[in-house]
């Protein structure tokens, strides 16, 4: 049974506070003025969160952004940046007869030759879960081996860490494909061709890491970072602040989501995160090798590490090359902020949420899925 909140009056009111069109119009005007004050165009800023793109698309905000401001979508979709070999590991384990528990969108992400959904169609035991404790429940309900294919950024990694520290049933192990956002911002900041002048950081991840996590980045790259929430006013106010910081050449971290985020973050969650995981370098699908961008289990948890408990022969999938269609997918460029979904010739044609070619069309946080869901032509400013 699922409990539906939101009928509660207080929540409705607090939600409306950040969905006030009058205040939004004032912020939209301010954003236009600040951008004009820069005296040059276009200026590019990047958000690194699928939830930001969701809100931007859902509320039609992109049509209100000033022409001189380029708001680029960065690698903010955890499902999209999970690398093909990581999907393959899950597929191979599933085909070995192990139960796989994972978050919903992962099931349909294409691997080298198949997705977990394809494996399921062949009889593999795939379970969609909504929270880490459900993997524990699943393992307790069977004597078979269960692998929790754990994906997502620090937000979900903390939840994985908590169940690990709580003790796992003997038949449960973890296949960690968790990613850590701060290092990839370094990569994108230095990527030739992006010229990003500031970042909008994700409010929910920052509730855990704290806004201070971005301070070394600002110091190294001289680029401002604004932590923002997910209501329309949060995003608009975050962008106004970001453009001000660019205009004033005062790179710093500004927390525009103080109702949830503190400078230090959730210290207990951070402590659990780093007790269980160590950062290590690895590929993000379509982006690059990201130093310290992957979260892997520390050695003391080797007994519950699926990569050690099982033999995973990745080469067994390599007799099937990805289709020509998949090879021409531009998800990587889209996640790096170099292209938009509509730049892809397959977008909405050969590649749809029903039959996704690339990961960006699978996940509800993927740029292609979001643009497709909200009509595909986001720029409607100025007419009628």
């Amino acid at each position, binding site marked *: 049974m*699922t409990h539906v*909140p*939101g009928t509660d009056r207080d929540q409705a009111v607090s939600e409306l506070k950040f*969905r006030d069109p009058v205040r939004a119009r004032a912020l939209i005007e301010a954003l236009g003025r600040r951008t004009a004050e820069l005296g040059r165009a276009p200026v590019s800023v990047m958000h690194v969160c699928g939830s930001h793109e969701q809100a931007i*698309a859902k509320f*039609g905000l992109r049509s209100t952004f000033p022409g001189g401001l380029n708001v680029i979508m960065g690698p903010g979709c955890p499902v999209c940046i999970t690398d093909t070999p990581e999907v393959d590991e899950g597929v191979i384990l599933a085909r070995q007869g192990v139960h796989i528990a994972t978050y919903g969108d992962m099931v349909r992400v294409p691997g080298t030759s198949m997705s977990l959904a394809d494996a399921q169609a062949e009889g593999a035991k795939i379970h969609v879960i909504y929270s880490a404790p459900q993997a524990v429940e699943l393992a307790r309900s069977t004597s078979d081996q269960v692998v929790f294919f754990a994906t997502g950024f620090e937000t979900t990694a903390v939840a994985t860490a908590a169940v690990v520290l709580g003790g796992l049933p003997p038949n449960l192990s973890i296949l960690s494909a968790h990613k850590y956002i701060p290092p990839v911002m370094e990569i994108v900041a230095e990527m030739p061709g992006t010229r990003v002048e500031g970042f909008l950081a994700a409010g929910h991840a920052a509730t855990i890491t704290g806004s201070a996590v971005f301070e070394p980045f600002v110091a190294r790259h001289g680029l401002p970072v604004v932590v923002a929430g997910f209501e329309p006013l949060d995003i608009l106010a975050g962008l106004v602040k970001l453009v001000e910081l660019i205009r004033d050449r005062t790179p710093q971290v500004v927390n525009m989501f103080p109702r949830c985020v503190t400078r230090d973050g959730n210290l207990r969650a951070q402590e659990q995160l780093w007790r269980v995981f160590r950062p290590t370098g690895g590929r993000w699908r379509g982006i690059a090798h990201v130093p310290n961008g992957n979260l892997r289990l520390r050695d003391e948890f080797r007994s519950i590490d699926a990569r050690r408990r099982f033999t995973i022969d990745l080469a067994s999938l390599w007799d099937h090359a990805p289709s020509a269609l998949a090879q021409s997918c531009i998800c990587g460029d889209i996640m790096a902020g170099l292209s938009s979904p509509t730049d892809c010739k397959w977008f*909405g044609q050969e590649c*749809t949420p029903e039959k996704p070619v690339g990961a960006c069309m699978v996940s509800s946080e993927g740029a292609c899925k979001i643009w497709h869901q909200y009509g595909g032509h986001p720029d409607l400013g100025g007419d009628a």
Partner: protein
Amino acid sequence: MIRRGFVDDKIGLKYGAGGRAMRALIERVCLAGIGPAPVDGIGLAAMDDGAALRVGDRWLVITTDSHVVHPIVFPGGDIGRLAVSGTVNDLAVMGATEPLALTCAVIMEEGFARADLERVYVSIREACQEAGATIVTGDTKVMGRGEIDGLVLNTAGVALCDRVVPDAGLKPGDLLILTGTVGDHGMAIMAVRHKLALEGDLRSDVAPINGLVRAALDAGGLDVVAMKDPTRGGVSSALHEMAEKSGVGIIVEEMKVPVRIQVRAACDLLGIDPLVVANEGKALIGVRAGAAEQVLAAIRRHPLGAEAAIIGRCIEQHAGAVILDTGFGRRMLAEPEGELLPRIC
């Protein structure tokens, strides 16, 4: 985006969803298999809510519907009420608000409880009374266990009227009235199917609305230029069809669309836009701008129309497209594809 006119070799659920895929199926397969369109009138090719044939100086409007809703009893109604309302409303949004007669065919699964069937017929009778309709003939079949799920109803209806209101009559400048809240039927069914424990009550809006449509027509006369009932695919699908057939763009103001708070909460939880959720007691009515307020006032005076609102307007640009003004910015409203929830009506 479904490639225009493309139909798969195997008919998937999306072909029953009331959207572009279903229209392609009708165009490619069903239309190819029937005779020529009526010389004077509206036939299947128009893919309107029903057909209209010239009879003397009046129009005979005819429509048919099959009902496969699961479960057959749901908060706010049941399959019987749905069957009568669906057919009466299809006639009404063609402009034929006084149903002459309905038919009702029943297909049951072996073992179906007599008491359940009797309850369905009580609902049928009640809905007919509300609509001022009578069932004049029918058909009964029983199929083996497992050959059909429970109960399927088919209803047809005929009515005479002086003027047919198509769904393609919109021009730039026209306004769109929605006769009440959206998403109630679909979310009521969804809540039962997903066993959602909800604060507040999700109830289907299923009701015959021919009286309400009559009130709108009486108030607006010839200025009521297009009507459609937003069932499967919701308001979004209906608006897309109206925009495409009329060759206009439509701008919808999201904040003016009436949605019950519990429907909005359930939609948020499930990540569904209320604009794509099915309704069974609502109409979208296109009116010339000058008549909009008086038509709206007439609708609001009707017991089923108290929450009616003007939700959008037609423009010359973006012909065939529907644009959503969110109050913050604008975006295209995507036409729903695939089946949000099969067996919803």
